[in-house]
């Protein structure tokens, strides 16, 4: 099971890398068979005003500041403004990375087992380190991320093939990795056990590639967990305010993060314009209505890390403050998952009947309606290669139960009657079973509203629910992500891109070989041998139309198994005050602080 996950991830990385290489080596951006770069609706201004201080209203805190550990959107927003990775994404292109610390594209050996990256001279660490970044700092950044003190969420998955990397990442203490070599201060070489250089190269955009100075960080990394998180030094245009020892005095967890200019940053080495002088992240703004209204009415502020403003605020803003909004495709699908291992959802016709009976438009309205996304009919969202090949916004609508976004009671009754012939209790075209189906929903809006609408629609189809609401984190870690919890319906699940590849959207979520006993994201527990085999085959198809078509076909095969009701490919609405030129980054789908400026 684990091997399969690694294999499929590796293959998807391979595919994504091919796009990267194509992008670095060619001006033809449509190498993937279709132009799939996610364009934010906010284009990057050619010039902008220099200076100014912004307040960012956030609900919560970043997960980590430490580049070895951060793995969530909000953390990325801070990381990519304060640190430089080997490669990164400009705001308006989330598919094709550009060299950041690197001088050019990665050099890959003919046997696909060696990657060489040259790094720029003249990039310096922020105080108190103050010295030039060398390749050894990147080597150490990798090595520390394999230790138990720095439990990286992806080091083993994406970089486990490096020679000398621990077989069980994040279980032991620090040790050098022989396969990461630094022949000189500006060259780093990755030696791989297997011919996976293309995919490993693609992952060089990840935060783990941000340099960490060993002589400074090692004392923090000896503690478990590492305390480097509160002593990070930076290479980006900005830094979190620190004292002379390097302690991040500008960050009070759960309260504020004070981001100021990095005095050691040199504009000549960077593509970022870095217009602003200071950004203060004010945390605790959990009420999105108040926070977004404050930004819309106020000055010098941005919002929100916790999602789009509530529908009424958004509706008003669209008519009155349109130039203060940015809509960023989130690169994901939200859906209602049925547990295919639980009766009556083990019956295909019952699942089809539910999909047919669901008013997906009503579900979408709970998040704000058409402005916040298209009604989904599959699992390859806009902006991901394979979307067009799958049929675009009409994907899977050849299946009668997915044909009408507003639902089709006649089709629902048809499938319910077919289920009746297979022994499912049905009366008058509705389910007549008496057992209460455990349904776990989130306790916060808009997800709670979505779940309530779904609950009503399921009851109309005759289902009796044991409807429980829990915090979103509990939903995933104790119920929907734990097969033994035996949850029948999870109305609030969704999957969003790590990078732009159709495999990354479908493999973890619908491959039966990826069902985990905890942290499971194949929520329907779909385990269809034909789909699993098709995924294995498609994972090694090179990037291009053939790959897109292969995954589009799998997308259709999944829809034929009706494991869930896809209902929105959503966009995130970001808000800026009227005196701010907000720019969003399509890769991490929130504001890009290095490109945002005052008007």
């Amino acid at each position: 099971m684990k091997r399969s996950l690694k294999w499929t991830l590796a293959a998807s990385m391979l595919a994504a890398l091919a796009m990267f290489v194509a992008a670095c080596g060619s001006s033809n951006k449509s190498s993937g068979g279709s132009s799939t770069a996610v364009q934010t609706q906010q284009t990057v201004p050619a010039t902008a005003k220099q200076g100014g201080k912004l307040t960012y209203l956030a609900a919560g805190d970043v997960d980590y500041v430490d580049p070895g550990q951060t793995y969530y959107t909000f953390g990325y927003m801070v990381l990519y403004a304060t640190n430089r990775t080997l490669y990164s994404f400009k705001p308006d292109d989330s598919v094709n990375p550009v060299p950041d610390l690197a001088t050019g594209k990665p050099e890959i050996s003919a046997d696909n087992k060696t990657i060489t990256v040259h790094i720029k001279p003249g990039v310096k660490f922020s105080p108190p380190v103050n010295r030039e970044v060398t390749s050894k700092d990147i080597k150490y950044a990798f090595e520390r991320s394999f230790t138990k003190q720095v439990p990286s969420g992806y080091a083993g998955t994406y970089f486990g093939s490096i020679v000398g990397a621990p077989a069980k990442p994040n279980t032991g203490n620090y040790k050098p990795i022989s396969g990461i070599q630094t022949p000189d201060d500006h060259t780093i070489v990755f030696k791989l056990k297997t011919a996976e250089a293309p995919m490993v190269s693609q992952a060089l955009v990840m935060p783990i590639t941000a340099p960490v100075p060993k002589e400074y960080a090692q004392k923090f990394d000896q503690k478990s967990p590492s305390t480097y998180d509160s002593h990070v030094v930076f290479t980006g245009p900005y830094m979190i305010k620190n004292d002379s020892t390097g302690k991040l005095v500008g960050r009070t967890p759960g309260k504020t993060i004070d981001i100021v200019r990095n005095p050691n940053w040199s504009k000549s080495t960077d593509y970022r314009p870095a217009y602003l002088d200071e950004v203060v992240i004010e945390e605790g703004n959990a009420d999105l209505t108040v926070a977004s209204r404050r930004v819309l009415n106020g000055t010098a502020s941005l919002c929100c890390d916790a999602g789009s403003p509530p529908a009424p605020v958004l509706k008003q803003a669209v008519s009155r403050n349109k130039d203060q909004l940015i809509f960023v495709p989130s690169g994901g699908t939200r859906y209602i998952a049925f547990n295919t291992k639980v009766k009556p959802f083990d019956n295909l016709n019952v699942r089809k009947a539910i999909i047919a009976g669901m008013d997906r438009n009503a579900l979408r309205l709970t998040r704000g309606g058409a402005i916040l996304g298209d009604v989904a009919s599959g699992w390859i969202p806009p902006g991901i290669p394979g979307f067009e090949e799958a049929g675009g916004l009409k994907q899977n609508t050849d299946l009668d139960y997915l044909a009408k976004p507003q639902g089709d009671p006649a089709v629902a009754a048809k499938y319910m009657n077919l289920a009746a012939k297979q022994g499912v209790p049905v009366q008058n075209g509705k389910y007549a079973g008496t057992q209460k189906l455990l349904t776990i929903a989130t306790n916060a809006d808009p997800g709670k509203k979505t779940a309530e609408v779904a609950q009503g629609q399921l009851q109309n189809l005759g289902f009796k629910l044991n409807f429980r609401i829990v915090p979103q984190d509990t939903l995933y870690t104790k119920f929907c992500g734990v097969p033994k919890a035996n949850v029948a319906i999870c109305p609030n699940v969704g999957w969003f891109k790590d990078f732009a590849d159709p495999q990354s959207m479908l493999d973890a979520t619908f491959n039966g070989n990826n069902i985990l006993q905890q942290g499971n994201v194949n929520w329907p527990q779909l385990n269809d041998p034909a789909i699993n085999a098709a995924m294995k085959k498609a994972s090694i198809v090179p990037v291009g139309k053939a790959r897109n078509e292969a995954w589009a076909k799998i997308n259709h095969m999944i829809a034929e198994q009706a494991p869930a009701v896809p209902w929105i490919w959503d966009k995130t609405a970001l808000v800026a005050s009227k005196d701010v030129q907000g720019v969003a980054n399509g890769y991490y789908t929130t504001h890009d602080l290095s490109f945002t400026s005052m008007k």
Partner: protein
Amino acid sequence: MIPFIIRRLIWMVALLLIISFLTFVIFYTLPSADPALLRAGKQPTPELVATIRQQLGLDKPFYVQYVKYLDRLVFHFDFGYSYQNNVSVKSQIFDRLPATGALALGGMLVWLLVGIPIGILAALKHGRWPDKLAMGAALVAISAPVYWLGLVSLYLFSDELGKFPLFKGQGAYPSSGNIFTNPGAVIPALILPCLVLAASFAAVYARFMRGNLIEVMSEDYVRTARAKGLRERRVVLRHGVRSAITPIVTILGLDLGILLGGAILTESVFNIPGVGRLAFDSIQKSDLPTVQGTVLMGAFFIILLNLVVDVIYAFLDPRVRY
């Protein structure tokens, strides 16, 4: 008196131990999120989850975790390390206490200054329109939930969103610093939250004061005082209010203790980074050490202020002896 205080202090320690144990049990019994999984990313490997579980000490049996916690708490005054914020819980709580203290004390000042005089006035005008008006207003204030009142006040009176921008709004406190370092900025930022926090308390205190005073004013000794020819003002203040206010001291101690443990709703609505909001955030993130720390801190204040009230009672009421 001294043996009484010592006895109560011993009980206080016992109670805190029981509370800490109950919090632990509740955390393990209720289906809260798994802290290790929360920190392990989107598709965690079992090894990564195991490492994080070990780091957080969650791989040990429940009783071992609890004993270790007690050991750190009792012998080192160490509340542990926050799962969520990667800092010591003690530093988080002490960092946030000034905000909670300023809010609670400011609120208390407002509700005493508003509630007690209104209660006295209503009692003295018992059954007449000032009484009816005051008690009607009190009913409204008691019935209005704090979070609703807070949001309405923000939309009406805050300088950021208000129709009548009279007071500093939600962003004022976070940008103003600490009550000790920057009182000039913090105090204006706390006016609206204190008014909102005080509204229902003032109403309760006014009703309580009114009821007590009406009862006291019909006592024989009050009639005697009047018969002695004392001025009405002196009768009311020296003989009536002094007696009627004694039970209020009891509830004041309890209320202040509860608020010092964190005014969760007010702090959340006005984004005041106090102990209450810390507790709320940590519950949401299944951050047990911080939940424990904030619960213990709240319990400590409630028990301590109860003790203080009991001691003060002895001075206010000569009949009380320990």
